[in-house]
């Protein structure tokens, strides 16, 4: 297996990317009508849709927190998302990913404004091709912003890895399967906070540092795509230079209930 050349002498990978190149990423915000917020992401061959519901009252009383909202994430892969049919349902892997994503997103959300509620995030992987947890976090954060939930900043996520002894960015499926290591990083560029960090395989300390810096740099790049997606959604609404009705202030709201 180790003989397979994933990266050639010129530094080109199987899909003709350079070692520090991302796969093409496309993010779209607000794709679901019935969710409070939603996003769709295409990351290489990954296709993931995310719906956010809430904040809504937490009905399981033992789970609710009197001081803040809790974040519940359900990550699941469609049975047709991989080559060999995947048995549907939540397994060990899904539980783990749901948990780490919930913890990553929780760091970004200002949750004390909504005590006793839950924010439910559903991440559905329609097509998987390595790096779904990173793509899932990235899209979930856009969906949460789309739902109007207050947050410190959006979470962006990307992985770096090692193939044929060389540190590269954003492993694809083949590289992930037979590569030497994988390092998903979740990062809030705003606060320079790392909210997700896992490692699979072996890095030397030097390689780890290199991979981490590479992935973190990519997160900053991905954040721009997240912002573009949100700006795009709200610039679709017809707009001209609003001066007339736009001089909105609190006084108008106060007059809200003018009875007939």
């Amino acid at each position, binding site marked *: 297996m180790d003989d397979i050349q994933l990266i050639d002498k010129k530094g080109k990978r199987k899909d003709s990317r350079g070692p520090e190149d991302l796969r093409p990423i496309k993010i779209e915000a607000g794709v679901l009508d019935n969710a409070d917020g939603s996003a769709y992401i295409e990351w290489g061959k990954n296709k993931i849709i995310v719906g956010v519901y809430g904040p809504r009252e937490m009905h399981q009383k033992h789970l609710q927190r009197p001081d803040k909202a809790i974040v519940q994430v359900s990550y699941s892969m469609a049975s047709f998302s991989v080559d060999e049919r995947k048995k549907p349902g939540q397994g060990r892997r899904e539980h783990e990913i749901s948990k780490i994503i919930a913890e990553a997103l929780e760091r970004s959300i*200002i949750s004390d404004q909504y005590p006793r509620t839950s924010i439910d995030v559903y991440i559905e992987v329609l097509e998987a091709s390595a790096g779904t947890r990173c793509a899932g976090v990235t899209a979930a954060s856009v969906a949460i912003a789309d739902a*109007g939930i207050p947050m410190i900043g*959006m979470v962006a996520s990307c992985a770096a890895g090692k193939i044929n002894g060389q540190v590269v960015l954003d492993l694809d499926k083949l590289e992930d399967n037979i590569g030497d290591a994988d390092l998903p990083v979740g990062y809030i560029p705003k606060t320079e906070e790392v909210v997700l960090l896992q490692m699979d395989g072996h890095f030397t300390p030097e390689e780890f540092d290199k991979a981490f810096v590479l992935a973190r740099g990519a997160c900053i790049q991905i954040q721009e795509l997240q912002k573009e997606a949100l700006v795009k959604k*709200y610039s679709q609404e017809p707009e001209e230079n609003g001066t007339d*009705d736009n001089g909105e202030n609190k006084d*108008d709201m106060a*007059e809200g209930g*003018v009875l007939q």
Partner: protein
Amino acid sequence: MTSQETTSNERVFVLPGDILGDDSFRSGSGTYSKDGSIHASQAGILNINRDFINVMPISSKYNPKFGDSVIGMIIDHGPSSWMVDIGCPYTAMMHTNDVQWNVKFGETGKYLKPGDAILSRVSNVNEVKKIQITMKDHGLRKLENGILVKIPQPKVPRIIGKGGSMISMLKQKTQTKMFVGQNGMVWIEGENENMQAVSQAIQIIIDRAHVSGLTEYVEKYLDNQDISSQDIGNTGD
């Protein structure tokens, strides 16, 4: 003052985490302050009002405040209280003391049943967001006729318009009774076709919320609608 002028003339779209100003300003709604500067916490339109920086969110759930007039839907009743959905993350409670009728213990269902709509006012919101509403105030009542239209809460000021210009225009043009709850529920009562016209006009207002001269546009739309609806009425019905 200069900042006030610039923001009223151009819409600045901001995203969570964007820096909006330094600590000479004060953090308003949709923002948080950290490390001596004000940041946006929601995606929305920047609004600087004197020394307050606000973000008008593009989408957000209704956050009940004391004194808000809201339209609620009864979802359940206990022996001495009703549970009311007011379109926010929490279910509101209304005690039998807070209604105009003298309700005997256990007879709440005789007055308001699940599915009934009421005009009410938020009478208390506590620190864990237990919400109480009341119907004991001038003009508050059960809504017997008419239709309810749900709109996104951030668009409520659009429906009302500057100084109530939009809503009074709608009422006058269509000869309907209207009430806009702060929670994004709109109640309309009138002739069937007029209620239809208003709900279509409301849809236009939501879709074109950021356009200038919206009141005139909707007014023109309703004027044309009168003619066309008559035409349809003659042939269709």
